[in-house]
């Protein structure tokens, strides 16, 4: 039995998964969700995980975030990184204002009040919500809430960002703009991102590397580097070409389950 560990010497990888296996349930009801997944994310690398339903994408992020335990294998995070996790829902605390939401991780790290205020203002400027600090989440649009969630995650000051279909519930226009935003923040802050999506175009738009997971159990079946210069546009022919290639593989994988 191994679990998430942190070691300072592995500076060449931000996140290292080796032979990660996850089993849910036991005995005859046991379900193998992930089967021997090995994957390294370099510092500053943007990796997209793509797969159909049941490929254990979300399970994988939960394991890396330390919210769940591996059944086998090992997950190593560079330094004492505590990765930030974002979900498809903003998961903001409805009883707190935008300011107070972003402040939660800072409070939990016991930063002094003056410093907290400064950091909250800076983070909200980063996501273009400087004027909305005193609003409550329900007063904002979906895209704005998701940006508050991003600011709150960035408040962890973590080099590793885990994103579980964060833009899946947004309309196309908002999503395009948030892609630009995320790309800018990622490059400014030199983050390592592990981004789960079922939207292949989104993966091609954002990723340095796309990794395709099979379904039931989740295994890595394909991986490709995306060498399109940034900033990219989601409707560019290069992005479309990569997306077409990954979609083809994904369809083959999905078709395998229909036989």
């Amino acid at each position, binding site marked *: 039995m191994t679990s998430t560990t942190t070691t300072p010497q592995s500076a060449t990888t931000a996140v290292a998964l080796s032979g990660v296996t996850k089993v849910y349930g036991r005995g005859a009801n046991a379900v193998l969700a992930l089967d021997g997944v090995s994957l390294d994310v370099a510092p500053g690398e943007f990796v997209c995980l793509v797969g159909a339903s049941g490929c254990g994408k979300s399970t994988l992020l939960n394991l890396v975030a330390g919210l769940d335990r591996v059944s086998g294998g090992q997950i190593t995070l560079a330094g004492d990184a505590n990765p930030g996790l974002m979900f498809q829902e903003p*998961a903001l605390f409805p009883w707190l204002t935008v300011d107070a939401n972003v402040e939660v991780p800072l409070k939990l790290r016991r930063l002094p009040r003056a410093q907290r205020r400064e950091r909250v203002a800076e983070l909200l400027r980063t996501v273009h919500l400087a004027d909305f600090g005193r609003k409550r989440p329900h007063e904002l649009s979906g895209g704005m809430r998701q940006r508050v969630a991003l600011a709150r995650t960035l408040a962890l000051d973590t080099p590793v960002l885990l994103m579980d279909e964060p833009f899946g519930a947004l309309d196309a226009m908002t999503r395009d703009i948030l892609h630009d935003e995320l790309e800018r923040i990622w490059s400014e802050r030199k983050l390592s991102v592990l981004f789960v999506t079922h939207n292949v175009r989104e993966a091609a738009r954002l990723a340095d590397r796309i990794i395709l997971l099979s379904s039931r159990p989740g295994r890595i079946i394909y991986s490709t580097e995306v060498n399109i210069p940034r*900033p990219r546009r989601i409707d560019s022919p290069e992005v479309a070409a990569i997306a077409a290639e990954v979609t083809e593989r994904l369809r083959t994988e999905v078709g395998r389950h229909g036989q």
Partner: protein
Amino acid sequence: MASDTLTSSARTDAEITGLDALEIAGRDKEVSRGARIWAATWPKLAALVIAIAAWQLVVWSGWKPPYSLPGPLEVGRELAAQAQGPQLWDGLVTTLRRAAVGYVFSVAVGLLLGLAVARSTVLRAAIGSMITALQTMPSIAWFPLAILLFELSEKAIFFVVVLGAAPSIANGVISGVDYVPPLLLRAGRNLGARGLNLYRYVIAPAALPAIVAGLKQGWAFSWRSLMAGELLVVGISQTSLGAQLTYSRELSDAPWLLSTMIVILVVGLGVDAAFGAADKAIRRRWGVLDQAGN
């Protein structure tokens, strides 16, 4: 290339600001304070007028003689007279003191019990359903036992008040903790809230609406138990509101009886309104109020 990036980021900024402005347009509808107070007040005034009118009509119909059912005017005069003397206020103070002591103790027991049951699966299996069973027991049915145990005393009343209120409060806590959205728990843990901090930053505030609902129900039970207790357990030193009801009936003093009932009603309504305001404030903060502000 550099200037290219700059213009593109400036464009993104403009797009974001524009999108935000479009999406939240029309969400900030301010209603004036006066209009809000009026909207909240007039249905209550109307209800009061209808109740008094109906009462007066029944009196005028001659259904019962005026010495057993006096009209609103006579009762109003009696109430005004009572308000001048010490008896009503002494009774009110006694009753409210009992209510406060019983309720505060019930809250302490209910919160602790609720938290313990919500946290521990063993406790839940053992006493979770017992709490629900206790709740179904009409509190007045406890009084004979309470009187056997504590005789005709304040303790008997206290015992029944706590038995009536604490289970409701505990149930509020349990359901509040049970229904904290798992997503918020995961988010909280990821943001670094573990152990007690998870309770402080996520579970307690998320459970607050259900806890307030439990507190409100607990109050209703304790107020009812208290009135039943004061009616049954009379003759102990002080003349509480409940005792005054009993005395006024024994003296066939209908105006006194009705004016005491009005005081009891007003106390109940007042506390209920306070809970209602707390509940509404929470729902407004959470953004779950509907358009009409209900």
